[in-house]
């Protein structure tokens, strides 16, 4: 009886939280902090740079020793349509590095999902597509800048090594050279983004990395076996990583899409990976 007054709604102070606001800029900053604060990502990033510069230098050095031998030079040139693309050779390491950056894309999303961090991320930023877009943008910015610098370094180191021989080395200002070098960085960034999309789809770092290795390294080789009667040339031309071939080389490669048509198709492939991953991420319980 006497408790009726107590049971009435007591005078609860009206609580007002501080007026913070979730913004896309905030999500970008958050992703930036997250990117640089996990050691595995940092080491993989360093690995990609070392791979680009180191393997590029090693291969350039190996080739330069052969270049002093006229016979060997002709033999090497034979395989590339009679013309040795020293830019491409100096960037040999970048081809391997593209797989390493794919791993970065995979780790930043799949690592977040597998540790459960994604629940914190989506609690802080419940607009999942925006959060994923912020992650993709940060990855794009970092990989593009770092790999462009690494690719430029590999180019200059490679040419410095080639210049010890009597062959004429390309300059960065020559037609198509800067485009090929930066195009390589763009290709690597695209593959990192594909790794991000696939990571969101498969939700597992190791699985994503293995799948990316197959898509980047194994499948192109297998496609070589497709006979012309099955439209082998067309399939090879339009296959994911092959579409970026011309973008990353100075000389046009026969039977491949031209630079900008190829770049557009490559962008479409990358977008497809990202959209698939984004849809999975949006729909799934985490």
């Amino acid at each position: 009886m006497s408790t009726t007054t107590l049971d009435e709604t007591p005078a609860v102070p009206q609580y007002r939280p501080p007026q913070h606001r979730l913004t896309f800029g905030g999500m970008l900053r958050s992703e930036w902090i997250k990117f640089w604060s996990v050691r595995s990502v940092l080491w993989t990033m360093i690995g990609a740079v070392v791979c680009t510069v180191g393997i590029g230098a090693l291969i350039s050095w190996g080739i330069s020793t052969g270049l002093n031998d006229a016979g060997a030079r002709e033999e090497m040139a034979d395989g590339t349509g009679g013309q040795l693309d020293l830019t491409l050779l100096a960037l040999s390491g970048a081809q391997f590095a593209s797989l390493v950056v794919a791993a970065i894309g995979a780790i930043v999303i799949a690592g977040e999902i597998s540790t459960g961090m994604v629940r914190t991320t989506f609690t802080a930023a419940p607009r999942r597509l925006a959060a994923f877009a912020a992650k993709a943008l940060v990855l794009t910015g970092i990989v593009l800048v770092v790999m462009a610098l690494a690719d430029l370094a590999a180019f200059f180191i490679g040419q410095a090594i080639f210049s010890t021989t009597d062959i004429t080395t390309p300059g960065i200002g020559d037609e198509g050279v800067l485009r090929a070098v930066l195009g390589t960085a763009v290709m690597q960034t695209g593959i990192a983004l594909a790794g991000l999309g696939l990571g969101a789809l498969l939700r597992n770092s190791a699985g994503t990395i293995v799948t990316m290795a197959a898509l980047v390294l194994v499948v192109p080789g297998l496609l070589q076996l497709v006979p012309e009667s099955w439209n082998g040339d067309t399939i090879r031309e339009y296959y994911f990583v092959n579409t970026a071939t011309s973008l990353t080389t100075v000389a046009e490669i026969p039977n491949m899409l031209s630079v900008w048509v190829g770049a557009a198709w490559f962008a479409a492939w990358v977008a497809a990976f990202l959209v698939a991953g984004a849809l999975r991420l949006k729909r799934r319980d985490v």
Partner: protein
Amino acid sequence: MIEAVGLRKVYGKKVAVDGLSFTVRPGIVTGFLGPNGSGKSTTMRMILGLDRPTAGHVLVDGIPYAKHRNPLGAVGALLDAKAVHTGRSAARHLQAVAATAGIPASRVDEVVELVGLREVAKKRAGGFSLGMGQRLGIASALLGDPSTVMFDEPVNGLDPDGILWIRNLMKHLAAEGRAVFVSSHLMSEMALTAEHLVVIGRGKLIADEPVRQFIDRTAPRGVLVRSPQVEELRELVTAAGGHLTSAQDGSFRVADLTPEQIGDAAARRGVALHELTPQRASLEEAFMELTAGAVEYHAHGAPGAGGPAPEQQTHGGDGRQADVRQADVPQADVPQQAQEVAR
């Protein structure tokens, strides 16, 4: 403030949460109780939009959580200690969360200090003990100074000091006018902290009411009486229509009489009483009674709810077996509320 309406979640063929409706009000600590696997964590994830309800909806301060412009200010959640990247330091983790809403670095330092993680803030969260992980989760929940705080099993892995600390923290947060929603399987802990209870079993609502009311729904426990005049006591109780059973320590338990009736009768007869205590079920006992049929995983696979009552769990054989049996089938006597909301 959380309002759940007809929440339902189905994983494949398993119904994890079934037509759950409840309200978590500001200004009090609301306990969320249920046996393991009863759908508590799933419900909490649905509140945050991490899991999508199969049916029904849940609002936070009137709108879905995902629609909030300041989500960290709407709900601060400790879901489980694992919602952290193991490779990242506690400080960086909190900075990343804070950055989304432009919460200043000073607030990060504040919550780190508040939960007592200052010394280990630079260490990788993967190396944290369970208790440190809980503290990090609580720090993360408090970052946005939210109007609703939601903790899933917060005292897991905390030492007694930590438990006392979080109990006071929750009361303090509620006193500031925030809604505090906390799940726990530690009844004694809940009895000390919560004013209101949301109880579920097998994903269904069993109770949404004040703690006291929940306890009062259990079978009557009688009155504990102590007297040096045993024979007179026995007579007067029987004469008044009560039933007296003796306990081991020389006291007696009287059923079917109120303390007033016993005291008045004793006074009229001049019988001295050294103790006269109405017996109330503990929250734990109440919980066991009212959820017995709703327990997901019995130790020895008793039949599920709806079937015959499980094997008698005799509590000291004090003649209230019939009551226990009745309470073992919660659908029979329980939730008017649950049925109302189901319509």
